[in-house]
């Protein structure tokens, strides 16, 4: 598969009164056609900022791309002018934001908000756009679409609103769909519906999706590949199976361990102590070291490079160095991995 998007050594900073906040500090990843890449991490880890850098929606002038390039179909889009970006946004790359209440215009009929992109980017006439809008609303599962296009966002329920937002994002058959926590504000049953809808549409349109979330359950549901971010860096990246069944970074262990399983009766959850670092002055060495119970001495001095675990799986932790002591994941995480292995019999993914 060809690479649709390539992010190389991207750093994003914000200038604030108290100094430079280094939100993203040198990340690399790529996205292939038709695949779903999930970016997970805590708030402040830089996952939303990364996607905002891609679409150039960083709040200017405070936020700026410090280094690196973003190649979309082998063209560096960080050098694009505003006008060029506007052509790209909404057409080739579109975004679904977290809160469907604030991403729709409350004073504009839903139908017009969807048709806007069609008229602008695909040069449709009003009548054509109207037909297409109805088609899109039906595609995302909104009944009585013909009536619904003349309604305002407040007449939609939360789940319906998010569906409308998905319809706007899909209007121009984007090559990349960026979903920034699209289901966090929704109930589990609605969340399941929206996720199913996005997968179905992806299959039909063959778009690539960048899915941002902090819910590992959702990640397991949608992702082909997963990137785990911490303090502005990707600390582990691999296929969904790599990350869930063979995690290597202690931060990933912590994330997995802090979610209870349905059949666990453990006394304590495996919580990550402390809180994320201040990105005004990121700590020297491995940013995760102060919260890491397996931290080595070198962690406080030098930043770990990306170690290759397998063809698809990379992690940045000194524990993977050949001279590092061999440390197994904490028991609760191991038990979880074994539990999954026993749940489906024919599987031999564990090693």
């Amino acid at each position, binding site marked *: 598969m060809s690479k649709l998007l390539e992010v190389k050594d991207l750093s994003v900073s914000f200038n604030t009164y108290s100094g430079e906040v280094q939100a993203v500090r040198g990340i690399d990843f790529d996205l292939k056609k038709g695949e779903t890449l999930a970016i997970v991490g*805590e*708030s402040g880890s830089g996952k939303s900022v990364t996607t905002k850098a891609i679409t150039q929606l960083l709040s200017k002038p405070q936020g700026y791309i410090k280094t690196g390039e973003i190649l979309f179909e082998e063209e560096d889009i960080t050098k694009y002018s505003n006008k060029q970006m506007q052509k790209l946004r909404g057409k080739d790359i579109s975004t679904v934001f977290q809160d469907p209440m604030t991403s729709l215009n409350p004073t504009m009929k839903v139908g017009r908000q969807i048709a806007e992109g069609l008229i602008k980017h695909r040069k449709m006439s009003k009548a054509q756009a109207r037909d297409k809008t109805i088609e899109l609303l039906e595609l995302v599962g909104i009944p009585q679409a013909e009536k619904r296009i003349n309604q305002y966002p407040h007449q939609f329920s*939360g789940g319906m609103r998010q569906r409308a937002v998905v319809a706007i994002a899909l209007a121009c058959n984007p090559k990349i769909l960026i979903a920034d926590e699209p289901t966090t504000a929704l*109930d*589990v*049953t*609605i*969340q*399941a519906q929206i*996720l*199913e809808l996005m997968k179905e549409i992806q299959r039909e349109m063959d778009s690539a999706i960048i899915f941002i979330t*902090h*819910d*590992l*359950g*959702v*990640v*397991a*549901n949608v*992702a082909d590949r997963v990137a785990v971010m911490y303090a502005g860096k990707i600390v582990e990246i691999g296929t*969904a*199976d790599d990350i*869930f*069944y063979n995690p290597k970074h202690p931060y990933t262990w*912590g*994330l*997995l*361990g*802090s*979610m*209870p*399983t*349905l*059949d*666990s009766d453990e*006394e*304590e*959850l*495996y*919580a*990550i*102590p402390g*809180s994320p670092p201040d990105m005004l002055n990121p700590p020297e060495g491995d940013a995760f070291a102060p919260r890491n119970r397996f931290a080595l001495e070198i962690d406080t001095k030098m930043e770990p490079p990306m170690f290759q675990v397998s063809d698809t799986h990379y992690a940045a932790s000194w524990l993977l160095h050949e001279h590092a002591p061999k440390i197994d994941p904490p028991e609760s995480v191991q038990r979880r991995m074994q539990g*999954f292995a026993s*749940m*489906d019999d024919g*599987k031999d*993914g564990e090693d």
Partner: protein
Amino acid sequence: MEQEKVLEVKNLQKHFKLGRKNIVKAVDDISFDINKGETFGLVGESGCGKSTTGRTIIRLHDATGGQVVFNNENVHGKKSKKDLLKLNRKMQMIFQDPSSSLNPKMTVMDIVAEGIDIHKLAESEADRKARVEELLETVGLNREHATRFPHEFSGGQRQRIGIARALAVEPEFIIADEPISALDVSIQAQVVNLLRGLQRDYGLTFLFIAHDLSMVKYISDRIGVMYFGNMVELAESDELYRNPLHPYTKSLMSAIPLPDPDYERNRTRVAYDPAEHDTSEEPEFREVKKDHWVRCTTEEFEQYKRQLENK
């Protein structure tokens, strides 16, 4: 062993008037008990009335009908100031949003000590300070934090302040209304561990309201599932997860995403269609098995019973 009931909710109703004609039945006739030292989980989608139930129990709303009995005493109805104070001390609440539930103009010391002042629990200024500092340490903060303001803290730390405030008056019963939904995953685990530790150390009773089912299952002894103002199923948490009977519970459980790609690939979601019930008969809350209650019609009741026997 006969368990001691701390709280009895009997046919509780809470209706809100919308204009002259419309009435929203946020909570419509629900009943349950909470035993001493247990954690009772209340789950359901937004708008199902779970928060309203919590708020009505603690008298933030007046009940439209029914009763809430706390330690053999009715919570609602006319009360003298003295009785009300006594009641408020035993029952406390932790709110969802830690940033809007703390007064931004008060220091952490004053926020936590507010209850101590109202109930006159401190003998002197020094005692008040000592109590607050002890509470802060109990919830995992430093005593130096007492002089700071809420905005200086992260979300998880603010929630800890909220917990310290609830603990300040030495309550028996705490209502936690989505205490972790606004927090990051790794911080959620910290707060849940803290709540469980406190329960163990102080013998607290919890009503835990949430929509995150895996967390509710983890923390609760018994779980009640709510749907549109009604309780549709109530059982011990293991039993509920092993044998969900009501179709809504099944649909809710099939929607929980689990951190396991293989499971997720093969998952089938069950949709809930309220039309599948026989509407000619008003469903009632019945005990299908010991301690396992379901809202059902007579016919469904027999069917559920058979279903459990065959397992």
